[in-house]
Protein backbone atom coordinates (compact mmCIF):
# COMPACT_ATOMS: atom_id res chain seq x y z
CA UNK A 1 0.00 0.00 0.00
CA UNK A 2 2.64 2.50 1.06
CA UNK A 3 4.65 2.11 -2.12
CA UNK A 4 1.82 2.71 -4.55
CA UNK A 5 0.38 5.45 -2.33
CA UNK A 6 3.78 7.12 -2.42
CA UNK A 7 3.89 6.87 -6.21
CA UNK A 8 0.48 8.50 -6.36
CA UNK A 9 1.58 11.27 -3.99
CA UNK A 10 4.65 11.96 -6.08
CA UNK A 11 2.70 12.06 -9.35
CA UNK A 12 0.03 14.32 -7.91
CA UNK A 13 2.68 16.62 -6.47
CA UNK A 14 4.52 16.79 -9.78
CA UNK A 15 1.28 17.35 -11.66
CA UNK A 16 0.26 20.26 -9.45
CA UNK A 17 3.75 21.75 -9.55
CA UNK A 18 3.75 21.49 -13.33
CA UNK A 19 0.34 23.15 -13.50
CA UNK A 20 1.36 26.00 -11.21
CA UNK A 21 4.59 26.32 -13.17
CA UNK A 22 2.58 26.68 -16.37
CA UNK A 23 0.41 29.39 -14.78
CA UNK A 24 3.54 31.20 -13.61
CA UNK A 25 5.04 30.90 -17.07
CA UNK A 26 1.95 32.43 -18.67
CA UNK A 27 1.78 35.22 -16.10
CA UNK A 28 5.51 35.87 -16.53
CA UNK A 29 4.90 36.41 -20.23
CA UNK A 30 2.72 39.38 -19.37
CA UNK A 31 5.62 41.11 -17.65
CA UNK A 32 8.96 41.48 -19.32
CA UNK A 33 11.95 39.59 -18.16
CA UNK A 34 15.30 40.41 -19.62
CA UNK A 35 18.32 38.18 -19.84
CA UNK A 36 17.47 36.52 -23.12
CA UNK A 37 20.97 37.18 -24.38
CA UNK A 38 22.62 33.88 -23.64
CA UNK A 39 26.21 33.80 -22.54
CA UNK A 40 28.38 36.85 -21.90
CA UNK A 41 27.03 40.28 -22.66
CA UNK A 42 27.68 43.93 -21.93
CA UNK A 43 25.22 46.78 -21.51
CA UNK A 44 25.15 50.15 -23.22
CA UNK A 45 22.56 52.90 -23.03
CA UNK A 46 21.02 55.10 -25.67
CA UNK A 47 18.67 58.07 -25.33
CA UNK A 48 15.83 58.60 -27.74
CA UNK A 49 13.29 61.39 -28.11
CA UNK A 50 10.62 58.82 -28.82
CA UNK A 51 10.76 55.03 -28.80
CA UNK A 52 7.50 54.34 -30.64
CA UNK A 53 6.29 50.97 -29.44
CA UNK A 54 9.73 49.49 -28.91
CA UNK A 55 9.45 46.74 -26.32
CA UNK A 56 11.78 45.03 -23.91
CA UNK A 57 13.47 42.04 -25.58
CA UNK A 58 13.24 43.61 -29.03
CA UNK A 59 16.28 42.70 -31.13
CA UNK A 60 19.36 44.90 -31.42
CA UNK A 61 20.83 44.32 -34.83
CA UNK A 62 24.00 45.16 -36.66
CA UNK A 63 23.83 45.05 -40.44
CA UNK A 64 20.53 43.24 -40.08
CA UNK A 65 21.91 40.47 -37.87
CA UNK A 66 20.70 40.24 -34.26
CA UNK A 67 23.54 40.76 -31.80
CA UNK A 68 21.62 41.69 -28.66
CA UNK A 69 18.36 42.60 -26.98
CA UNK A 70 16.69 45.62 -25.45
CA UNK A 71 16.78 44.88 -21.73
CA UNK A 72 15.11 47.93 -20.22
CA UNK A 73 13.19 51.00 -21.30
CA UNK A 74 12.73 53.90 -18.91
CA UNK A 75 12.34 57.64 -19.13
CA UNK A 76 14.71 60.28 -17.77
CA UNK A 77 12.67 62.59 -15.51
CA UNK A 78 15.06 65.50 -16.12
CA UNK A 79 15.53 65.72 -19.86
CA UNK A 80 12.35 63.77 -20.77
CA UNK A 81 14.18 61.37 -23.04
CA UNK A 82 13.63 57.65 -23.16
CA UNK A 83 16.60 55.65 -21.91
CA UNK A 84 16.95 52.33 -23.66
CA UNK A 85 19.34 49.76 -22.26
CA UNK A 86 20.87 47.43 -24.81
CA UNK A 87 22.43 44.11 -23.97
CA UNK A 88 24.95 43.19 -26.60
CA UNK A 89 26.69 39.87 -26.84
CA UNK A 90 30.33 40.14 -25.75
CA UNK A 91 31.37 38.67 -29.06
CA UNK A 92 30.73 42.14 -30.51
CA UNK A 93 32.76 44.25 -28.07
CA UNK A 94 34.64 46.09 -30.79
CA UNK A 95 31.90 48.62 -31.61
CA UNK A 96 33.40 52.14 -32.03
CA UNK A 97 32.21 54.84 -29.57
CA UNK A 98 30.66 56.85 -32.39
CA UNK A 99 28.30 54.02 -33.31
CA UNK A 100 24.78 55.30 -33.90
CA UNK A 101 21.51 53.68 -32.86
CA UNK A 102 18.29 53.97 -34.85
CA UNK A 103 14.86 52.65 -33.96
CA UNK A 104 13.73 50.86 -37.08
CA UNK A 105 10.64 48.89 -38.04
CA UNK A 106 10.43 45.46 -39.60
CA UNK A 107 8.27 45.85 -42.66
CA UNK A 108 5.77 48.67 -42.86
CA UNK A 109 3.76 47.80 -39.75
CA UNK A 110 6.00 45.33 -37.98
CA UNK A 111 7.59 45.44 -34.56
CA UNK A 112 10.33 47.91 -33.66
CA UNK A 113 13.99 47.00 -33.26
CA UNK A 114 17.25 48.84 -32.83
CA UNK A 115 19.66 49.04 -35.71
CA UNK A 116 23.26 49.92 -34.91
CA UNK A 117 25.47 51.66 -37.47
CA UNK A 118 29.16 51.35 -36.59
CA UNK A 119 31.22 54.55 -36.71
CA UNK A 120 34.92 54.93 -37.39
CA UNK A 121 36.47 55.82 -34.04
CA UNK A 122 39.38 53.80 -32.71
CA UNK A 123 37.95 53.75 -29.18
CA UNK A 124 35.34 51.08 -28.53
CA UNK A 125 32.14 51.05 -26.49
CA UNK A 126 32.53 49.54 -23.05
CA UNK A 127 30.07 48.28 -20.46
CA UNK A 128 27.65 51.03 -19.27
CA UNK A 129 28.75 53.48 -21.97
CA UNK A 130 26.20 55.59 -23.72
CA UNK A 131 25.62 55.73 -27.44
CA UNK A 132 25.63 59.44 -28.34
CA UNK A 133 24.19 59.47 -31.83
CA UNK A 134 20.61 58.24 -31.87
CA UNK A 135 17.62 58.57 -34.12
CA UNK A 136 14.13 58.24 -32.70
CA UNK A 137 11.38 56.06 -34.02
CA UNK A 138 9.69 57.40 -37.10
CA UNK A 139 6.03 57.73 -36.30
CA UNK A 140 4.22 56.83 -39.46
CA UNK A 141 1.05 58.60 -38.42
CA UNK A 142 2.95 61.88 -37.85
CA UNK A 143 4.50 61.62 -41.31
CA UNK A 144 1.13 61.01 -42.89
CA UNK A 145 -0.33 63.90 -40.93
CA UNK A 146 2.37 66.22 -42.21
CA UNK A 147 1.88 65.12 -45.77
CA UNK A 148 -1.83 65.68 -45.51
CA UNK A 149 -1.53 69.12 -43.94
CA UNK A 150 1.38 70.66 -45.83
CA UNK A 151 1.69 68.65 -48.98
CA UNK A 152 5.39 68.07 -48.38
CA UNK A 153 7.27 66.35 -45.62
CA UNK A 154 9.48 68.66 -43.58
CA UNK A 155 12.07 66.97 -41.43
CA UNK A 156 10.82 66.79 -37.85
CA UNK A 157 13.52 68.72 -36.04
Amino acid at each position, binding site marked *: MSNSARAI*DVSVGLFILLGLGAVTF*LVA*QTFGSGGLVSGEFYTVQARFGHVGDLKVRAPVSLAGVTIGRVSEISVDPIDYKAIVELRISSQFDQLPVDTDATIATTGLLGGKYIELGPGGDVEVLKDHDEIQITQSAILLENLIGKYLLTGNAEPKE
Partner: protein
Amino acid sequence: MSKVIRDCWIEFGHFAATFGAFQIFSMRLLPYMPGAFLRPRLISEQIYNIGALSLVLIMFGGLFVGMVLALQSYSTLAEFGQADSIGAFAAEALVRELGPVIAALLFAGRAGSAVAAEVGLMRATDQIAAMELMAVDPIRRVVVPRFIAGVISVPLLAAIFSALGVLGACLVGTGLLGVDSGAFWSQIQGRIDLQDVASGLLKSLVFGISASLMGVYEGYFAAPSAAGVSRAATRTVVITSVWILLFDFILTALTLPEV
Protein backbone atom coordinates in the same frame (compact mmCIF):
# COMPACT_ATOMS: atom_id res chain seq x y z
CA MET B 1 -51.13 16.55 -34.87
CA SER B 2 -52.20 16.36 -31.25
CA LYS B 3 -49.93 13.31 -30.92
CA VAL B 4 -46.89 15.38 -32.03
CA ILE B 5 -47.72 18.08 -29.53
CA ARG B 6 -48.19 15.48 -26.80
CA ASP B 7 -44.85 13.83 -27.67
CA CYS B 8 -43.12 17.18 -27.61
CA TRP B 9 -44.70 17.91 -24.26
CA ILE B 10 -43.53 14.55 -22.88
CA GLU B 11 -40.03 15.12 -24.26
CA PHE B 12 -39.96 18.54 -22.67
CA GLY B 13 -41.11 16.97 -19.45
CA HIS B 14 -38.20 14.49 -19.62
CA PHE B 15 -35.79 17.31 -20.27
CA ALA B 16 -37.14 19.37 -17.39
CA ALA B 17 -37.01 16.37 -15.08
CA THR B 18 -33.38 15.59 -16.00
CA PHE B 19 -32.38 19.21 -15.69
CA GLY B 20 -34.11 19.51 -12.34
CA ALA B 21 -32.56 16.29 -11.06
CA PHE B 22 -29.17 17.62 -12.15
CA GLN B 23 -29.70 20.87 -10.25
CA ILE B 24 -30.83 19.03 -7.13
CA PHE B 25 -27.81 16.73 -7.40
CA SER B 26 -25.48 19.75 -7.66
CA MET B 27 -27.12 21.25 -4.58
CA ARG B 28 -26.65 17.98 -2.71
CA LEU B 29 -22.90 18.13 -3.35
CA LEU B 30 -22.51 21.61 -1.89
CA PRO B 31 -22.67 20.81 1.85
CA TYR B 32 -19.96 18.17 1.42
CA MET B 33 -17.42 20.61 -0.01
CA PRO B 34 -15.67 21.84 3.17
CA GLY B 35 -15.68 18.42 4.83
CA ALA B 36 -14.18 16.71 1.78
CA PHE B 37 -10.81 18.31 2.45
CA LEU B 38 -10.64 16.52 5.79
CA ARG B 39 -9.83 13.38 3.81
CA PRO B 40 -7.31 14.68 1.27
CA ARG B 41 -6.16 11.15 0.42
CA LEU B 42 -9.41 10.48 -1.44
CA ILE B 43 -9.02 13.66 -3.45
CA SER B 44 -5.36 13.17 -4.25
CA GLU B 45 -6.05 9.63 -5.50
CA GLN B 46 -8.60 11.07 -7.90
CA ILE B 47 -6.33 13.92 -8.96
CA TYR B 48 -3.87 11.21 -9.88
CA ASN B 49 -6.48 9.22 -11.82
CA ILE B 50 -8.12 12.00 -13.74
CA GLY B 51 -5.51 14.78 -13.69
CA ALA B 52 -2.01 13.37 -13.65
CA LEU B 53 -2.87 10.54 -16.02
CA SER B 54 -4.38 13.01 -18.51
CA LEU B 55 -1.12 14.91 -18.57
CA VAL B 56 0.48 13.10 -21.51
CA LEU B 57 -2.53 13.64 -23.75
CA ILE B 58 -2.81 17.31 -22.75
CA MET B 59 0.90 18.00 -23.24
CA PHE B 60 0.92 16.29 -26.59
CA GLY B 61 -2.20 18.19 -27.65
CA GLY B 62 -0.85 21.54 -26.51
CA LEU B 63 2.49 21.14 -28.20
CA PHE B 64 0.98 20.19 -31.52
CA VAL B 65 -1.82 22.75 -31.47
CA GLY B 66 0.81 25.43 -30.85
CA MET B 67 3.00 24.15 -33.65
CA VAL B 68 0.09 24.03 -36.09
CA LEU B 69 -1.04 27.53 -35.07
CA ALA B 70 2.43 28.88 -35.81
CA LEU B 71 2.59 27.20 -39.21
CA GLN B 72 -0.94 28.19 -40.11
CA SER B 73 -0.68 31.83 -39.08
CA TYR B 74 2.72 32.17 -40.72
CA SER B 75 1.34 31.76 -44.23
CA THR B 76 -1.07 34.65 -43.72
CA LEU B 77 1.07 36.92 -41.59
CA ALA B 78 4.18 36.55 -43.75
CA GLU B 79 2.21 38.01 -46.63
CA PHE B 80 2.06 41.29 -44.72
CA GLY B 81 5.61 41.07 -43.44
CA GLN B 82 4.26 40.35 -39.96
CA ALA B 83 5.82 36.95 -39.42
CA ASP B 84 7.17 38.21 -36.07
CA SER B 85 3.62 38.30 -34.76
CA ILE B 86 2.99 34.56 -35.01
CA GLY B 87 3.99 34.24 -31.36
CA ALA B 88 1.54 36.91 -30.27
CA PHE B 89 -1.18 35.38 -32.42
CA ALA B 90 -0.63 31.85 -31.16
CA ALA B 91 -0.23 32.92 -27.54
CA GLU B 92 -3.38 35.01 -27.48
CA ALA B 93 -5.44 32.32 -29.16
CA LEU B 94 -4.07 29.66 -26.81
CA VAL B 95 -4.33 31.56 -23.55
CA ARG B 96 -7.78 33.01 -24.14
CA GLU B 97 -9.55 30.34 -26.16
CA LEU B 98 -7.91 27.19 -27.35
CA GLY B 99 -6.11 26.26 -24.15
CA PRO B 100 -9.18 26.17 -21.91
CA VAL B 101 -11.54 24.81 -24.57
CA ILE B 102 -9.41 22.06 -26.10
CA ALA B 103 -7.98 21.01 -22.75
CA ALA B 104 -11.52 20.74 -21.34
CA LEU B 105 -12.75 18.80 -24.38
CA LEU B 106 -9.81 16.40 -24.13
CA PHE B 107 -10.43 16.14 -20.40
CA ALA B 108 -14.11 15.29 -20.97
CA GLY B 109 -13.12 12.56 -23.41
CA ARG B 110 -10.24 11.21 -21.37
CA ALA B 111 -11.40 11.58 -17.77
CA GLY B 112 -15.06 12.65 -17.69
CA SER B 113 -16.17 9.51 -19.50
CA ALA B 114 -13.95 7.37 -17.26
CA VAL B 115 -15.51 8.86 -14.13
CA ALA B 116 -19.01 8.29 -15.50
CA ALA B 117 -18.20 4.70 -16.42
CA GLU B 118 -16.56 3.98 -13.06
CA VAL B 119 -19.35 5.44 -10.96
CA GLY B 120 -21.94 3.92 -13.31
CA LEU B 121 -20.42 0.48 -12.90
CA MET B 122 -20.43 0.95 -9.13
CA ARG B 123 -24.14 1.66 -9.42
CA ALA B 124 -24.72 -1.29 -11.78
CA THR B 125 -22.87 -3.75 -9.54
CA ASP B 126 -24.67 -2.45 -6.43
CA GLN B 127 -21.50 -1.18 -4.80
CA ILE B 128 -23.23 2.11 -4.15
CA ALA B 129 -26.19 0.33 -2.54
CA ALA B 130 -23.73 -1.71 -0.47
CA MET B 131 -22.05 1.46 0.78
CA GLU B 132 -25.41 2.85 1.81
CA LEU B 133 -26.13 -0.38 3.70
CA MET B 134 -22.85 0.00 5.56
CA ALA B 135 -23.80 3.57 6.42
CA VAL B 136 -21.01 4.91 4.17
CA ASP B 137 -22.30 7.91 2.30
CA PRO B 138 -21.52 7.20 -1.38
CA ILE B 139 -21.70 10.89 -2.23
CA ARG B 140 -19.07 11.72 0.37
CA ARG B 141 -16.93 8.67 -0.43
CA VAL B 142 -17.24 8.41 -4.23
CA VAL B 143 -18.81 11.45 -5.84
CA VAL B 144 -17.36 14.48 -4.08
CA PRO B 145 -13.65 13.50 -4.28
CA ARG B 146 -13.97 12.94 -8.03
CA PHE B 147 -15.77 16.23 -8.49
CA ILE B 148 -13.23 18.24 -6.51
CA ALA B 149 -10.32 16.51 -8.24
CA GLY B 150 -11.78 17.47 -11.61
CA VAL B 151 -12.29 21.09 -10.59
CA ILE B 152 -8.67 21.29 -9.42
CA SER B 153 -7.25 19.44 -12.42
CA VAL B 154 -8.85 21.19 -15.37
CA PRO B 155 -7.42 24.71 -14.80
CA LEU B 156 -3.97 23.21 -14.26
CA LEU B 157 -4.28 21.08 -17.39
CA ALA B 158 -5.47 24.09 -19.40
CA ALA B 159 -2.51 26.17 -18.21
CA ILE B 160 -0.12 23.36 -19.12
CA PHE B 161 -1.81 23.08 -22.51
CA SER B 162 -1.41 26.81 -23.20
CA ALA B 163 2.17 26.96 -21.96
CA LEU B 164 3.23 24.01 -24.09
CA GLY B 165 1.34 25.47 -27.02
CA VAL B 166 3.35 28.69 -26.77
CA LEU B 167 6.54 26.66 -26.53
CA GLY B 168 5.45 24.62 -29.56
CA ALA B 169 4.78 27.81 -31.49
CA CYS B 170 8.22 29.08 -30.45
CA LEU B 171 9.80 25.82 -31.58
CA VAL B 172 8.25 26.03 -35.04
CA GLY B 173 8.46 29.83 -35.32
CA THR B 174 12.07 30.31 -34.36
CA GLY B 175 13.36 26.91 -35.39
CA LEU B 176 11.57 26.18 -38.61
CA LEU B 177 10.29 29.51 -39.91
CA GLY B 178 13.25 31.67 -38.91
CA VAL B 179 11.40 34.22 -36.78
CA ASP B 180 13.73 36.05 -34.40
CA SER B 181 13.24 34.70 -30.89
CA GLY B 182 13.51 38.12 -29.24
CA ALA B 183 10.86 39.55 -31.55
CA PHE B 184 8.74 36.46 -30.91
CA TRP B 185 8.77 36.85 -27.13
CA SER B 186 8.56 40.64 -27.07
CA GLN B 187 5.49 40.56 -29.32
CA ILE B 188 3.88 38.01 -27.00
CA GLN B 189 4.61 40.25 -24.07
CA GLY B 190 3.10 43.22 -25.83
CA ARG B 191 -0.03 41.29 -26.71
CA ILE B 192 -0.85 39.21 -23.62
CA ASP B 193 -1.84 40.91 -20.41
CA LEU B 194 -2.86 39.65 -17.02
CA GLN B 195 -6.51 39.88 -17.95
CA ASP B 196 -6.05 37.39 -20.79
CA VAL B 197 -4.45 34.87 -18.45
CA ALA B 198 -7.10 35.47 -15.79
CA SER B 199 -9.99 35.03 -18.22
CA GLY B 200 -8.41 31.81 -19.50
CA LEU B 201 -8.17 30.50 -15.95
CA LEU B 202 -11.74 31.53 -15.18
CA LYS B 203 -12.95 29.72 -18.28
CA SER B 204 -11.10 26.55 -17.47
CA LEU B 205 -12.47 26.64 -13.92
CA VAL B 206 -16.02 26.84 -15.26
CA PHE B 207 -15.30 24.07 -17.77
CA GLY B 208 -13.76 21.97 -15.01
CA ILE B 209 -16.85 22.33 -12.86
CA SER B 210 -19.18 21.40 -15.74
CA ALA B 211 -17.07 18.46 -16.96
CA SER B 212 -16.64 16.84 -13.57
CA LEU B 213 -20.20 17.53 -12.41
CA MET B 214 -21.53 15.93 -15.56
CA GLY B 215 -19.31 12.87 -15.18
CA VAL B 216 -20.35 12.11 -11.61
CA TYR B 217 -24.00 12.93 -12.25
CA GLU B 218 -24.33 10.68 -15.29
CA GLY B 219 -22.45 7.87 -13.54
CA TYR B 220 -24.43 8.16 -10.31
CA PHE B 221 -27.76 7.99 -12.10
CA ALA B 222 -26.75 5.51 -14.80
CA ALA B 223 -29.17 2.72 -15.59
CA PRO B 224 -27.78 -0.37 -13.81
CA SER B 225 -26.85 -2.32 -16.93
CA ALA B 226 -24.01 -2.59 -19.44
CA ALA B 227 -25.94 -0.41 -21.86
CA GLY B 228 -26.66 2.09 -19.09
CA VAL B 229 -22.98 2.49 -18.25
CA SER B 230 -22.00 3.01 -21.87
CA ARG B 231 -24.86 5.48 -22.27
CA ALA B 232 -23.65 7.40 -19.22
CA ALA B 233 -20.12 7.64 -20.63
CA THR B 234 -21.39 8.79 -24.02
CA ARG B 235 -23.80 11.32 -22.56
CA THR B 236 -21.05 12.74 -20.39
CA VAL B 237 -18.81 13.46 -23.36
CA VAL B 238 -21.61 14.82 -25.56
CA ILE B 239 -23.30 17.02 -22.99
CA THR B 240 -20.03 18.27 -21.52
CA SER B 241 -18.78 19.25 -24.98
CA VAL B 242 -21.98 21.17 -25.70
CA TRP B 243 -21.73 22.92 -22.34
CA ILE B 244 -18.11 23.81 -22.82
CA LEU B 245 -18.74 25.37 -26.21
CA LEU B 246 -21.83 27.20 -24.94
CA PHE B 247 -20.11 28.54 -21.81
CA ASP B 248 -17.10 29.48 -23.89
CA PHE B 249 -19.21 31.74 -26.05
CA ILE B 250 -20.89 33.34 -23.05
CA LEU B 251 -17.63 33.85 -21.16
CA THR B 252 -15.83 35.20 -24.21
CA ALA B 253 -18.62 37.71 -24.75
CA LEU B 254 -18.42 38.72 -21.10
CA THR B 255 -14.63 38.98 -20.80
CA LEU B 256 -13.81 40.49 -24.18
CA PRO B 257 -11.57 43.51 -23.58
CA GLU B 258 -12.68 46.79 -25.06
CA VAL B 259 -10.53 47.45 -28.11
